[in-house]
């Protein structure tokens, strides 16, 4: 298996080089046969990459601890399904996973474009993709092979970090990767257009599904990461502006901006340079994310340690950035458009503002993340910033963005007239205002939460109006009853309404984040058996303490009785687990979730005589946030379901 893995990796690398050579010959000689051969070689990369991936999975399954990577992340006692996820528990396996997925994506592109090889841009797309995938395999076979052997055969492996033994581990890293990697495809399309000198006017249309699908994966990955932190790490939060979290958030922001302005380009054929630049930036920030995680230049909870891979990614990033800038500058004349934005108050300009703000958030997040590295040069002092910085800078920007989300559908394309504005604004504005006053009356006096909730009402109202408007228009057109017209119009225009559903999801996320940050309660108390504490509407009683042996760990569990508003509800159980192979214990969170609030319990310490310390938190409205995540993903998926008639994806 080790030999197979090594050979397959090398074969994948050689195959990608071969593809490049064939494509170059084909381009120089203008010979389609070579280009077709190059296309097939690209597909071959996926075959070899899959064999390498299979080998590594097999090595984990068979407990082959002579393989250093397997010994580092697995052991005999590990449940079989975590053995499979250990594949991407470390950086070498992650890199193989990355290269493997990329090669499969590329094979999909090669398959879908098999009849388009005569088009001028297609060979260039292949070439760019081959170059990128060869970079990853070069790293795998030279500096970071997961198939390296130890000089001896250890009796058992080192085990998987207990914190990674959680269902989140199955989905969080791979979905993030699927998102990161997916943006390679539109990037390749854009660069191919630039190199060939013939800007394909349809490149956005052709890559739309890749963009949105990658965005969906990124969204899922980020939300699952937050949820994993929340239910597993036990510090009561879900987001800490940690460098690695930021590294996933920055491409999300940039790609969100890109998805919005690509709509403008499709509709009005403007902002071509802008979109070209945005996809390059999306791809770069994805690589930057990987670089940040691998280089060890910043301290992070996701501390993978410095691995020497950072330098390679840095060079790769510089090459991509400089190359793209030169290419865009050279094609600037072709990309420039005669039209430009016509009016400050038009739907186009709301998209532009949305972009500027998204990019501003991306920039401030990027800046804050790397600030410790540059502070000495900039300020002459070693300074660093943390959560307070990001919250302070980004909160007003997010609220501005939310306001634009609500304004956008109310403003018509090209230019809005005053009458048109008045009519459209009346209901959402009135509702939001009334809601704001009501909340003020109910005692929400802090500025940001009040603004956030009021804007949430405003945006929701505009979305509801859009849905009603659509259904009415269809009713008028077809004479259907409104109950029938409603789902039909949504399905028919699912691209548009999918977008609105995503927006509604964002509103829910805003509500969840606002509630759980502004109104969070937290308490840490040490209790004797029978002792009680209270938090919010809850009274908690420490009832019982147990310990038992379970699989590869020893578990200490406390039973906590819960009384809510004077009524006893179900007991909660919180645990500390000591894994055989780990030096430090893990905390098992006990959660009582509802849309109103979460009650969150952990037991960070056990003292003498069964004395325990309980950390309790009440997180209001957080459930809305997770629900919002579901809406965002469902809306996104809706927007890319192909129509039955012209099923044609790239």
């Amino acid at each position, binding site marked *: 298996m080790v030999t197979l893995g090594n050979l397959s990796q090398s074969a994948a690398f050689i195959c990608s080089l071969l593809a490049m050579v064939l494509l170059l010959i084909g381009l120089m000689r203008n010979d389609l046969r070579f280009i077709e051969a190059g296309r097939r070689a690209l597909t071959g990369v996926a075959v070899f990459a899959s064999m390498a991936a299979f080998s590594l999975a097999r090595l984990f399954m068979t407990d082959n*601890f002579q393989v*250093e*990577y397997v*010994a*580092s*992340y697995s052991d005999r006692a590990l449940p079989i399904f975590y053995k499979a996820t250990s594949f991407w*528990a*470390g950086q070498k396996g992650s890199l193989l996973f990355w290269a493997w997925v990329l090669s499969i994506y590329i094979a999909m592109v090669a398959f879908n474009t098999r009849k388009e090889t005569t088009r001028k841009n297609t060979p260039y797309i292949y070439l760019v993709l081959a170059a990128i995938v060869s970079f990853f395999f070069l790293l795998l076979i030279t500096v970071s092979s997961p198939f390296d052997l*130890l000089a001896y055969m*250890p009796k*058992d492996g*080192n085990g998987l*970090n207990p914190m*990674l033994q959680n269902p989140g581990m199955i989905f969080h890293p791979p979905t993030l990767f699927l998102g990161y990697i997916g943006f390679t495809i539109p990037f390749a399309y854009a660069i191919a257009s630039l190199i060939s000198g013939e800007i394909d006017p349809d490149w956005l249309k052709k890559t739309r599904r890749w963009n949105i699908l990658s965005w969906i994966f990124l969204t899922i990955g980020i939300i699952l990461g937050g949820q994993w932190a929340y239910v597993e790490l036990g510090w009561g939060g879900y987001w800490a502006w940690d460098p690695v979290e930021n590294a996933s958030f920055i491409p999300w922001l940039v790609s969100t901006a890109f998805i919005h302005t690509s709509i403008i380009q499709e509709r009005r054929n403007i902002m071509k340079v802008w979109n070209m630049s945005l996809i390059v930036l999306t791809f770069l920030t994805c690589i930057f994310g990987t670089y940040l995680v691998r280089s060890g230049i910043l*301290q992070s909870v*996701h*501390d*993978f*340690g410095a691995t020497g891979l950072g330098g390679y990614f840095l060079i790769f990033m510089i090459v991509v950035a400089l190359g793209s800038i030169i290419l865009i500058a050279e094609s600037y004349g072709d990309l420039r458009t005669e039209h*430009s*934005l*016509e*009016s*400050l108050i038009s739907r186009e*300009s709301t998209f*532009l*503002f949305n972009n*500027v*703000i998204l990019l*501003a958030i991306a*920039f*401030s997040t990027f*800046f*804050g993340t790397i*600030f410790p590295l540059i*502070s000495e040069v900039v*300020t002459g002092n*070693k*300074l*660093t*910033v*943390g959560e*307070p*910085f990001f919250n*302070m*800078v980004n909160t*007003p*920007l997010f609220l501005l963005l939310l306001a634009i989300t609500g304004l956008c559908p109310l403003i018509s394309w090209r230019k809005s007239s005053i009458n048109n504005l008045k009519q459209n604004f009346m209901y959402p504005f009135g509702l939001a205002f009334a809601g704001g006053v009501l909340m003020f009356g109910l005692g929400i006096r802090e500025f940001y939460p009040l603004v956030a909730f009021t804007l949430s009402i405003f945006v929701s109202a505009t979305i509801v109006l859009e849905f009603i408007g659509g259904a009415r228009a269809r009713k008028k057109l077809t004479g259907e009853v409104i109950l029938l017209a409603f789902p039909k119009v949504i399905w028919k225009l699912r691209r548009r309404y999918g977008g609105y559903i995503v927006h509604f999801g964002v509103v829910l996320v805003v509500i969840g984040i606002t509630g759980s940050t502004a109104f969070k309660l937290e308490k*840490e108390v*040490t209790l004797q058996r029978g002792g009680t504490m209270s938090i919010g509407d809850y009274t908690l009683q420490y009832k019982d303490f147990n310990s038992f042996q379970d699989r590869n760990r020893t578990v200490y569990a406390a039973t906590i009785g819960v009384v809510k508003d004077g009524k006893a509800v179900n007991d909660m159980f919180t645990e500390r687990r000591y894994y055989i192979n780990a*030096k*430090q*214990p*893990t*905390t098992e969170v006990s959660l009582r979730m509802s849309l109103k609030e979460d009650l969150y319990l952990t037991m*960070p*310490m056990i*003292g003498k005589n069964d*004395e325990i*310390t309980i950390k309790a938190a009440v997180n209001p409205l957080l459930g809305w946030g997770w629900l919002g995540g579901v809406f965002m993903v469902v809306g996104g998926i809706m927007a890319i379901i192909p129509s039955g008639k012209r099923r044609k994806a790239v």
Partner: protein
Amino acid sequence: MKKRSKKTGIALLLILLGVGVLILKGISDTGVYYRTVSEVLVDNTLLEERGVRISGEVEGGTITYDQQELKLSFLVRDLEEPEKTMNVVYIGVKPDAFDADVEVILEGRYEASQNTFFAETLLAKCPSKYEGKTEQIEE
């Protein structure tokens, strides 16, 4: 058409200006110094105006913890020069990874007169947190 574009341009410029101001204000309001233990011992003149983040290692045998009061105190030593130390007081739950010789990152204020660091946050870095360690197997 040109005129209207100008309006949009001005609006954009205002936003960018606002973002710039926000970032600068964010740094000046929330930025903290980061220092090593020995740097703080040598020079603590600036540290009264704003918080400071230090990293160091926990000196074994100096850890005391009062679970009722949730009060943790210990000596932290410099990563490079282990003879340089200061007292640390932290109120809160002791992190799982906290132990003798573990690297910690502290944020808070330094009181020079008592050579004591009053930490508001305490992060313990587990050396083998995510990176597998093969040395352990060889033992």
